[in-house]
């Protein structure tokens, strides 16, 4: 693996340090020693030294959610996400990817979408048809929402309709690049996906992102890659929070724990709109690790190849909500909702923003 000098430095700095172990959502859920930044760095450091084969550690490289909790935690500023993305890129370049990642890349090559059986739900197609006419505003759904959280995506479209805004949903939505970046890092393919998506976004004055992962990559990474987006960029959560008066929300007094997706809590520093929504419908009850310290509750793309681990991650977050005395865990990420909707937890139910407000 031909790591850059920067990646080598970060790998060697992290390989014997466990200071971020306690905040790794995957490690916390599995209890596995290999699931922390230090373990990945140690394995990769041996690969760098020729003492281990890349394929022996490839699976471990994909057991990371790239949620950047470890990056935020590091007092020195070491960045495990940086070297893990680079490792994924190198594994792809060398053709040493785990078979399940290869399969997702095959899907992407064939259909432009990493998710298998990428056939759209009929009711979602109907909902999209209602917004096929070009307007000033694009509602970008994301592939995770379309193919793994479609029922809730329909509800999100319905909720947006209730605000009275006129908007467009693309018939064949391209990938923002977030999914492909997750799989193979910052490659030419990823940047090509970004450029392709940017063309669509630039046809509109405003873009509303349903998936915070898309918002994050467009706001942060597109700039790094020199891909300009001129539209005004808004998250679904912040748009709904700003239009709550039009939705006539009833406050039922239920205890609601806002589940900050890492893309909003840590990367885009947008945490209050979700709380405003929760406060409109009930009583905000904070989980111990919230806002920039949030833990993920799931990841649709990881659920493709490690569903049991994602279930354990979700259960752990439900436990946090229960410990805080919440009855509802409020999610605003289709990627997380796609996982938590299928996990049952006594006393706490997971609701999306649309589910909460349309209830």
């Amino acid at each position, binding site marked *: 693996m031909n790591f850059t000098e920067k990646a080598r430095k970060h790998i060697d700095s992290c390989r014997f340090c*466990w200071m971020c172990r306690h905040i790794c959502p995957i490690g916390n859920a599995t209890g596995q020693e290999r699931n922390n930044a230090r373990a990945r760095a140690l394995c990769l450091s041996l690969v760098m030294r020729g003492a281990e084969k890349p394929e022996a550690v490839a699976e471990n490289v994909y057991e990371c959610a790239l949620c950047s909790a470890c990056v935020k935690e590091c007092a020195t500023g070491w960045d495990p996400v940086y070297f893990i993305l680079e490792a994924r890129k190198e594994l792809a370049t060398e053709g040493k990817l785990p078979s399940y990642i290869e399969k997702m890349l095959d899907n992407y090559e064939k259909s432009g979408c990493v998710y298998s059986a990428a056939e759209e739900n009929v009711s979602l197609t109907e909902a999209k048809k209602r917004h096929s006419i070009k307007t000033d505003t694009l509602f970008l759904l994301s592939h995770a929402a379309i193919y793994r959280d479609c029922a809730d995506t329909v509800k999100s479209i319905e909720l947006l309709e209730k605000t009275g805004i006129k908007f467009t949903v693309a018939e064949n939505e391209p990938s923002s690049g977030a999914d492909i970046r997750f799989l193979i890092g910052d490659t030419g393919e990823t940047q090509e996906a970004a450029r392709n998506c940017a063309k669509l976004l630039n046809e509109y004055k405003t873009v509303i992102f349903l998936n915070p992962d898309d918002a994050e990559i467009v706001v942060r990474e597109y700039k790094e890659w020199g891909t300009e987006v001129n539209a005004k960029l808004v998250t679904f959560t912040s748009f709904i929070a700003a239009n709550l008066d039009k939705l006539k929300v009833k406050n039922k007094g239920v205890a609601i724990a806002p589940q900050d997706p890492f893309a909003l809590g840590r990367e885009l520093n947008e945490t209050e709109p979700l709380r405003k929504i929760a406060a409109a419908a009930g009583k905000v009850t904070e989980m111990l690790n919230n806002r920039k310290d949030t833990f993920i509750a799931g990841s649709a793309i990881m659920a493709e190849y490690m569903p049991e681990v994602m279930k354990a991650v979700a259960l752990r977050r439900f436990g946090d909500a229960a410990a805080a005395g919440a009855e509802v865990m409020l999610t605003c990420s289709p990627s997380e909702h796609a996982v938590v909707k299928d996990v049952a937890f006594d006393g706490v139910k997971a609701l999306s923003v649309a589910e909460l407000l349309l209830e």
Partner: protein
Amino acid sequence: MEFNEFLFTNVLCELEDAVGRENCSVREADKITHSVDYFWLSRMWADRGKHMPEADVVVCPLNAEETSKVLKIANYYKIPVTTWGGGGGTQGGAIPVAGGIVVDTKRMDKIYEINTQSMYIECGAGAIYKHVEWAANEKGYATMHYPSSLNCSTVGGFLAHRGIGVVSTKYGKIDDMVLQMEIVLPNGDIITTSPAPKHAAGPDLNQIFIGSEGTLGIITKAQMRIYEQPEVRYFRGFLFRDMTSAFRAGKEILQKFKPSVMRLYDEAETGSLIKKIVGVEKKGAFMNVAVEGVKEITDVELKILLETFRKYGAEDLGAEYGEKWWKEKITFFYPGHMMDLPEMFGTMDTIAPYDKIEKIYREMKKAIETNFPMARFIAHFSHWYEWGCMIYDRFIVDDVPKDPKEAMRLHNAIWNCGVRTALKNGGVVNDHHGVGIKLGRLMKEQYGPAMQVFTGLKKQLDPNGIMNPFKLGL
């Protein structure tokens, strides 16, 4: 016994039956990550591109019952078993030097009960201590166990190595913080220690297993004390002209009350780490003290502290440095702040009564600097009692032999010299990091014929010698 492929697979099937296939791994990534702990030699070995001794299989039981099944299998086939908590130990205690099975305890992380009536949390021994702290905090309490490894080490790891945190002077070591433990013996029997720790029902079972480093069994559950959050926590930094007056001042204050934090840095560490992290520019011996608790009482304690230290000529540096230190207390240990490879370094912490401690410090410093002129020696004194205190003394070598075997020779020679000097002058093998494989050879030198108590226990409880072989000098 030679394990051929057929027999190995057969044993693997038995282990999978005990804990579930998904909790039983022969993956290379699992073997690698359980082969290197925080021990300098294991890190150096990996840094030189060499594999450390690895387990043949890594097993992650969920509870005492599953752990019991694993130990019964291991005993039958006489397979070595090494227990791994967080792997954050510095003594090589968790390294599977003899191969065999690594039992990783981190799936045993359940918080069973937060008992605010009796002020304890009952949890699995694999719980990361920071998570236990969070659980306590959520109810308005605290564990008051704050070592630098709080984020990464487990309840069982701290117990097995007799750990200590930065507020120990007031709240005690880990062995003062545990009420009851559940332990799986090497033969698979599951036992619990006394329902209360202070009793006259024979020797204290807790204290037999605390510090036993996985050589006598596996701790699977523990009741750990919790405390009320202090109303106030006041910091005060002081600068002493010399170490002697600092020791005297420290000893005197401990006769009056117990501060929570009390850390005295020698001139060398004041001028290096403290200068870098906390910003103290002056020459001398820096001491950081915190007093905490109920405000009315703490106000009086602060007054006594200032009056007492003034008698010994300490310069009062105010609250700022202490508060900065508290904020940065873990920053010291992140890569980039802490000593790191290619440097060689080690912490030879020891403890002794006040009438010996200063001499131990000076003799160790002299022995290291004289015999190993390439080594720097720095020290601080951070856990104080009415009768004595501990030294956290460290050596640092910049120019390390390139050959890993030669590096090991130098490393072990420095350790032998340092610890033997401590022992000769009334100290112990270690204060709060444990023994592991690093210091096992020196245990007999400290204990002499008393070592037969430990070997007797080992022979009785683990006649096949499967539990963490070559550790603790057993």
